[in-house]
C-alpha cells in the first residue's frame, strides 16, 4: 500500500521519528557539500540544492525548484554511522590486570534520505559484519536499532551507474519507509512501508492513499533516473575479465596517475578496511585498543612479518579494483560496488573505475582477437 505525504508535511515524519526516540540523521548542506548530519527539522534538508559531479570534481548548485532530495550522493556514506571511523574495543588497567569491553551507548538512529544504492551498500556490509562465523558485535549493536527512510533517486549524477549493477535507482526492499519525491503538480512524496516499524510510523503521518496518477508519476521518476545512466558500465563479465588480466600493462598505467591517497576507499560505502591501534598511557597504568578506518592504499596495510605483499601502487590499485568488482563476489556473493560514483568524484587524480575497466576490456579483446 502506498500513501501520499504533502511535501509541507515532511517535518511531521521527522517529528514522528524523534517522538519514537530516534536520533534523526540525514542530508544537509555544510562546508560546501551535502553531508549526513543530525537534523532538527525539515528546514535542515538541502531543499533547492543539487550536486554536479565529474571525475575529481564536486560542486553544489541551485536547482530551479525546491526539491528536498534533488541531488545524487555526497562524500559521506552511512558507514560513518554503522562502522564509525574510530571505535574503542576495550581498555585495560594494570590494577589487577582488568580488561574491560567498551560500553557504548547505542542510540536508535533514523537514517533519512538513504539512496537505493546505499541500501545495497548497507546490505553488503550487513553480510560482511553479521553473516558467517564472526559477527561483529559493535556493528550489530549499531545496526539493530536503525530505521531506514529511503528516498528513491530522481537526480543521478553523471558518475552514477547503479542501474548497471541493479542497485537502483528504485528502492525494492531493505527499508522501513521508501519515499519518492514528486514534483509534477503538487510537491509531494509517495510513501511506501517495508516493515512493521515502517507501518507504525506511516500510521502517524497525515497521508492520503496514493492514486494511480501518483504511482505512475513515481514510476516515471525512477525510470527517467535509470534511463539517464543507461549503458555506463558493463557489469556482466567484469569478474572474469579482471581476473584473467591480472598482469595487464594497464595496471601500470593506472599506477602512474594514482596517488595512493586512499580517498576512493574511504568514501566507498562498502569498503570496510580497518586496523587496530594499541595505545598505552605515559605512566603505563592503562592500555586501550581502538579500531580505526584504514585503507588498502596505505603501505603498512599489507605489512606483515617478513615483508609487504603489496609494496607498489600498482599492486594496491589492482588489489582494490579486483576485490571490489571480482573477488568480492567469490567472498560475499555479490559485487562490492553499488555504482554510487563516490570513488570517481572524490579521487584527486580523477581516476574513473568505469574507464579503467573499459580500458582493460578493450585490451583484452585486442589480445584475444
Amino acid at each position, binding site marked *: 500500500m502506498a500513501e501520499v505525504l504533502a511535501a509541507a508535511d515532511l517535518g511531521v515524519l521527522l517529528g514522528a521519528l524523534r517522538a519514537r526516540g530516534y536520533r534523526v540523521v540525514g542530508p544537509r548542506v555544510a562546508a560546501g557539500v551535502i553531508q549526513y548530519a543530525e537534523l532538527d527539522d525539515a528546514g535542515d534538508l538541502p531543499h533547492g540544492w543539487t550536486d554536479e559531479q565529474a571525475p575529481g570534481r564536486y560542486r553544489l548548485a541551485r536547482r530551479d525548484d525546491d526539491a528536498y532530495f534533488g541531488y545524487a550522493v555526497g562524500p559521506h556514506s552511512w558507514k560513518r554511522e554503522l562502522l564509525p571511523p574510530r571505535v574503542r574495543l576495550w581498555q585495560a588497567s594494570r590494577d589487577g590486570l582488568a580488561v574491560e569491553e567498551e560500553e557504548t551507548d547505542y542510540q536508535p538512529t533514523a537514517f533519512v534520505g538513504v539512496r537505493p544504492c546505499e541500501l545495497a551498500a548497507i546490505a553488503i556490509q550487513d553480510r560482511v559484519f553479521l553473516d558467517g562465523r564472526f559477527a561483529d558485535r559493535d556493528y550489530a549493536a549499531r545496526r539493530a536499532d536503525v530505521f531506514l527512510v529511503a528516498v528513491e533517486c530522481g537526480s543521478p549524477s553523471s558518475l552514477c551507474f547503479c542501474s548497471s549493477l541493479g542497485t537502483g535507482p528504485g528502492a525494492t526492499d531493505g527499508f522501513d519507509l521508501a519515499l519518492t519525491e514528486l514534483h509534477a503538480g503538487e510537491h509531494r512524496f509517495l510513501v511506501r512501508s517495508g516493515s512493521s516499524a515502517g507501518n507504525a510510523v506511516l500510521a502517524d503521518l497525515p497521508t492520503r492513499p496514493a492514486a494511480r496518477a501518483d504511482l505512475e508519476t513515481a514510476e516515471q521518476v525512477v525510470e527517467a533516473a535509470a534511463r539517464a545512466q543507461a549503458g555506463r558500465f558493463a557489469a556482466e563479465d567484469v569478474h572474469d575479465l579482471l581476473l584473467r588480466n591480472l598482469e595487464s600493462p594497464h595496471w601500470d598505467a593506472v599506477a602512474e596517475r594514482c*596517488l595512493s591517497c586512499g580517498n576512493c576507499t574511504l568514501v566507498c560505502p562498502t569498503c570496510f578496511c580497518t586496523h587496530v591501534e594499541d595505545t598505552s598511557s605515559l605512566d603505563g597504568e592503562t592500555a586501550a585498543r581502538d579500531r580505526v578506518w584504514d585503507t588498502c592504499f596505505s603501505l603498512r596495510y599489507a605489512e606483515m612479518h617478513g615483508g609487504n605483499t603489496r609494496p607498489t601502487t600498482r599492486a594496491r590499485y589492482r588489489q582494490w579494483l579486483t576485490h571490489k568488482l571480482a573477488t568480492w563476489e567469490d567472498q560475499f556473493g555479490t559485487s562490492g560496488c553499488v555504482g554510487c560514483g563516490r570513488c570517481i568524484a572524490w579521487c584527486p587524480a580523477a581516476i574513473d573505475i568505469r574507464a579503467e575497466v573499459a580500458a582493460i576490456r578493450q585490451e583484452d579483446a585486442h589480445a584475444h582477437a
Partner: protein
Amino acid sequence: MTRKPTLAVWKFSSCDGCQLSLLDCEDELLAVAGAVEIAYFLEASSAVARGPYDLSLVEGSITTPHDAERIHQVRRVSKTLVSIGACATTGGIQALRSAHRLGDLVSAVYARPEYISTLRTSTAIADHVPVDFELQGCPIAKAQLLEVVGALLAGRRANVPTYSVCVECKRAGVPCVLVSRGLPCLGPATQAGCGALCPSYGRGCFGCFGPKEQASDVEAPSLASAFGR
C-alpha cells in the same frame, strides 16, 4: 625503586617550535614529568643532569661544522635518539641554501660575512648519526610526540601513520577541499599526523608534515591536475 628514564632535548639549527610543543603539552606535562626525569632541556630549565640519557629528542638540522661534531657527542650519550620536526628529519627550510652558492647568500644576508662559519648544506640528523625514530612535522604534533615517548617507555611500536592526510580528513568527515572547491591541496602526498588541521578550516594542506610513505612515487602532474579542476 627503579630509576625513571632520563630525557634530554637538544637543539640544532631550528626555530625551537618543536621542542616548545613539549612544553605546550600543558595538560599532559605532569604525566611526562612523572614518567621520565627531564635531565637536559635548556628551553625549560637551566638545571642540567649529567648524561648518558635514555631518550634524546633532537630538534634542528646540521648546518655548521660545530653542529656536525656536536651531534656525534649527543649520539654517544643517548641510548635512544629521536629526531623531531622538519629541520631534523629533512634539513628544513634552511636546506633551500643547497640550491644556491653559499657565498652569495651569506653576503646578501649578513653585514659582516666573515663572521659566519657554516656548512654549504643543511642536512637531517640521520645523515650524520644513526637515528632510532624520525617524527615529521613543522612543527611536530604534540599528540604524536607524547605517543612516541609513551611507546618507547612501553616498549611498543608508536602509532605514527605514514599514509596521507586524506585519511585523516575522511575520518574526521572533512569534505575534500580539492574536489569540492578546487583548492590546491598537498594532502594526498603529505604524511598524516596533523589531524587534517588546514582542511578542517577550509584551507588546502601545504605539506608541513612532509612527504608521506613512497611520496616519490606520487606523480606531481597527476596531483597538480586536480588543482582548480
